[in-house]
């Protein structure tokens, strides 16, 4: 049996506790753990694959209009693909989406192509007015994600929760049997 990292299970718990049962995603490597944990332990969560992150935000907006509480799960590079959807649909219409962002380009990165966007993500969120928080450890994941979702759906503002590589691939990665 594959082991589920602590942080990945925490992400699932947090999304679930925030009342989200629809996760639209474009996968990346660390997020594969989250997807597997959803499939195995949160069977009431619907996983929806999108071909591009911008499309994922469009689908999420429609889910919200229909009464759901959508999560979009993506890599930080995908925020670059999604800016028009976030700034001209989610924000002006006050459509809340919980964004779970797997970070690239931060500490521990090996691929230079990931660095400029990874470095810019928080500044971009600040510029366009998207509140964001960062998961500091595997143990912290569930509560940080839950609070981000609770805020998003409570005040109807799309909110991001960032997963640093230190947590998803580095020394903080606690493996549970």
């Amino acid at each position: 049996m594959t082991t589920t990292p602590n942080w990945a299970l925490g992400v699932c718990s947090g999304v679930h506790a925030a009342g989200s049962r629809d996760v639209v995603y474009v996968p990346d490597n660390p997020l594969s753990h989250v997807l597997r944990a959803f499939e195995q332990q949160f069977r009431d969560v619907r996983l929806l694959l999108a071909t591009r992150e911008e499309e994922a935000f469009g689908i999420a907006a429609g889910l919200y209009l229909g009464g759901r509480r959508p999560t979009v799960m993506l890599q930080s590079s995908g925020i670059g693909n999604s800016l028009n959807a976030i700034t001209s649909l989610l924000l002006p219409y006050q459509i809340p989406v919980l964004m779970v962002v797997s970070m690239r380009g931060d500490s521990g990165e090996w691929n230079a192509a990931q660095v400029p966007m990874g470095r810019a993500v928080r500044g971009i969120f600040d510029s366009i007015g998207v509140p964001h928080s960062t998961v500091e450890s595997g143990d912290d994941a569930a509560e940080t994600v839950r609070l981000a979702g609770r805020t998003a759906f409570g005040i109807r503002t799309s909110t991001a929760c960032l997963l640093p590589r230190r947590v998803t691939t580095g020394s903080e990665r606690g493996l549970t049997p």
Partner: protein
Amino acid sequence: MTGPMTRFEATRLIVELAGDVPIIASLGHPAYDLFAAGDRPQNFYTWGSMGLASSVGLGLALARPDVRVIVIDGDGSLLMNLGSLATIGLLRPSNLVVVVMDNEEYATTGGQPTPTAYGADLEATARAMGIAATATVRTPEELMDALDVALGPTFIVAKVQESAPMAKPPLDCVFIKQRFMSAIHNPESAMAGRPLPDPSS
């Protein structure tokens, strides 16, 4: 080649047939025509996010399998988000109808030709992505027949003449959203109050 039908005529026909079915309109002329053809609370006008109308419609169709969802898209817009056809073809929600008003030009920005003017075939693309119920229509009668499909998803390319829009929808995005959510009976609409828990329990 476009048919004799104008985009406004096609839009008006859709609104007439739609009843209280929600309609998502792509930004620019498709949204302007939807407003002019018949403003109703069940119309969701996008003011930005070019390309995403079919994605918004897909999300709504998945959230609300009990209602039919109509999307009015443009050829230029859909070409920005062709991946949406793959996702619709993958998930195949039976309640989703996508109508592309294909005037073969970027009409909202001054009439520059789109690839469909040179043969790009959006119906063939949808079919190749696994959407079975597809049609290309040029007249109101053909459009009416194409809309009359019991089990979707349905993808219709309406080859239409560009027609100068007569009006613009409301500019307040939050108003559009709240009115829409209330009209489709979404309890999350902030226009509705909500009961507090019984303090005696």
